[in-house]
């Protein structure tokens, strides 16, 4: 006796018309919506809706390191705290952060650090708090993507944005942007992040079974799809500055 409705996996992940269960083509992304500057108390913040994922990211820093002994004399440190709300998943998550959340926090930190100039901020910390409010597959990638946006929103110098998504294999077919159900019922899952300043991979995990040619294909698909997401990130930031500029001009207008 736990829950009345079970979290069961469907037998097939493709419909008869060749579309995925949510109607997408193999290389089609779920709908993505981003916003920046959504949390007034943070130095920078962003919000993403990606399919049913709803995630907030807040950036604080550069600021003092607590506890102090974690600070480094020669560079700043980046700390990421990825947390899921208890109600963001099918079975209620326990409130205390689990091993998975700590592991993902570390992975996201490793993946964002290459785009920062931490050597310019010795003795300080940048802290990114990520709160998953609603989860539907690919939260670590969506979190990476929205965290990179929050860093930009905070005005922290960056070599480039970072974009992440999960590609994989379901029912023997290679697809991009796994949904929650595809992640659980599929055969292979490959989250990947790209640092655009050098076009390289800063997050790479893989679980499943693929031969070399499948891996080759899926990595190419990932890069193509990532480019589309990157454009949304850039536009979100542009819109912020346009809106700021509009406000400024409105004010100027008012002054006239």
């Amino acid at each position, binding site marked *: *006796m*736990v829950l*009345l409705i079970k979290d069961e996996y469907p037998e097939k992940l493709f419909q008869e018309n060749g579309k995925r269960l949510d109607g997408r083509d193999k290389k089609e992304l779920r709908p993505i919506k981003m916003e920046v500057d959504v949390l007034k108390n943070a130095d920078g913040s962003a919000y993403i809706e990606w399919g049913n994922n709803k995630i907030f990211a807040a950036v604080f820093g550069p600021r003092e390191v607590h506890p102090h002994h974690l600070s480094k004399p020669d560079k700043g440190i980046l700390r990421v705290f990825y947390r899921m*709300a*208890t*109600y963001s998943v099918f079975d209620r998550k326990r409130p205390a952060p689990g091993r998975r959340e700590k592991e993902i926090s570390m992975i996201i930190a490793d993946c964002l650090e290459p785009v920062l100039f931490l050597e310019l901020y010795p003795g300080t910390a940048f802290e990114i708090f990520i709160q998953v409010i609603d989860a539907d597959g690919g939260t670590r990638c969506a979190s990476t993507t929205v965290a990179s946006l929050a860093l930009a929103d905070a005005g922290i110098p960056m070599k480039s944005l970072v974009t992440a998504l999960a590609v994989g294999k379901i029912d023997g077919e290679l697809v991009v942007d796994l949904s929650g159900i595809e992640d659980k019922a599929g055969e292979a899952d490959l989250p990947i992040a790209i640092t655009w300043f050098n076009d390289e991979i800063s997050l790479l995990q893989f679980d499943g079974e693929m031969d070399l040619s499948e891996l080759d294909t899926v990595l190419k698909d990932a890069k193509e799809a990532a480019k589309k997401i990157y454009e949304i990130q850039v536009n979100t930031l542009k819109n912020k500055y346009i809106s700021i500029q509009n406000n400024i001009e409105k004010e100027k207008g008012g002054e006239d």
Partner: protein
Amino acid sequence: MMDVKRVISTIERKYIKNNLKKEERLDGRGLWDYREFKITPNFVAAAEGSADVSLGETRIITGLKYDIGTPFPDLPDEGVCTIMAELIPLASPLFERGPPDEQSIELARVVDRGIRHADCVQTKKLCIEAEKAVYILFVDMYVINYEGNLIDCGGVSALTTLISAQLPEGKWNGEDVEWTGGYFTGKDIVNELPLVITYGKIDDIIFLDPDLPEELVCDGRISISSTEEKITSIQKSGVATFSFDEIKMLCSKSLEIGKKLRKDLNLWQYKANIE
């Protein structure tokens, strides 16, 4: 732990206090005005009920999950509704990482007590089979932005979450609980609509809905929950003391403000619609 009182300078404290003495507040409100409530129900797809509620810039997203368990032996035909709060550091530099601290325990407890003692959640309706199986509801509040008065924002957030709930309906087949295929909703669970209303006190000035600077400088707060006609819960916190007359005045005021707010918010509009 950071001492939140220190982030407000003595000058700011004086300024806020002097304004309040003149019945003026930094954001232009009168002493007995609320900031604006904004409510988005069913914000979370994964939850069986949810609400994204803002009170001014304070924002709390609450979700409901359920479990089915054995009832407590002394209440064999009653389900359980637990309320939890997380004050995550994303919401404010004043919040620390780590296990729930005093402030989050207080938020959960005061919201819980306001609901528990008002015949709000009809726990008998959460019983599937006496002594065998009942619903256990988890109403979890996450503070997304903190700008003062978490309690009143949390109260509305929790209540809207319960009203918006939609739970698969179980029946007892003699051995186990199985799904009927139907659902029951917040309309079936929620009876009364208790509202919790919080006042701050600085010296001898009392005012409704403290915002963050007011909360940081005030000597104490009092939260009063009420239904249409009755007071159902009171919680004083902080080092302020209240005279007997002040308590009476605030209880009376809470009934009055509660009535108006209940009408304005019209929370029943957020109930799940199922035919």
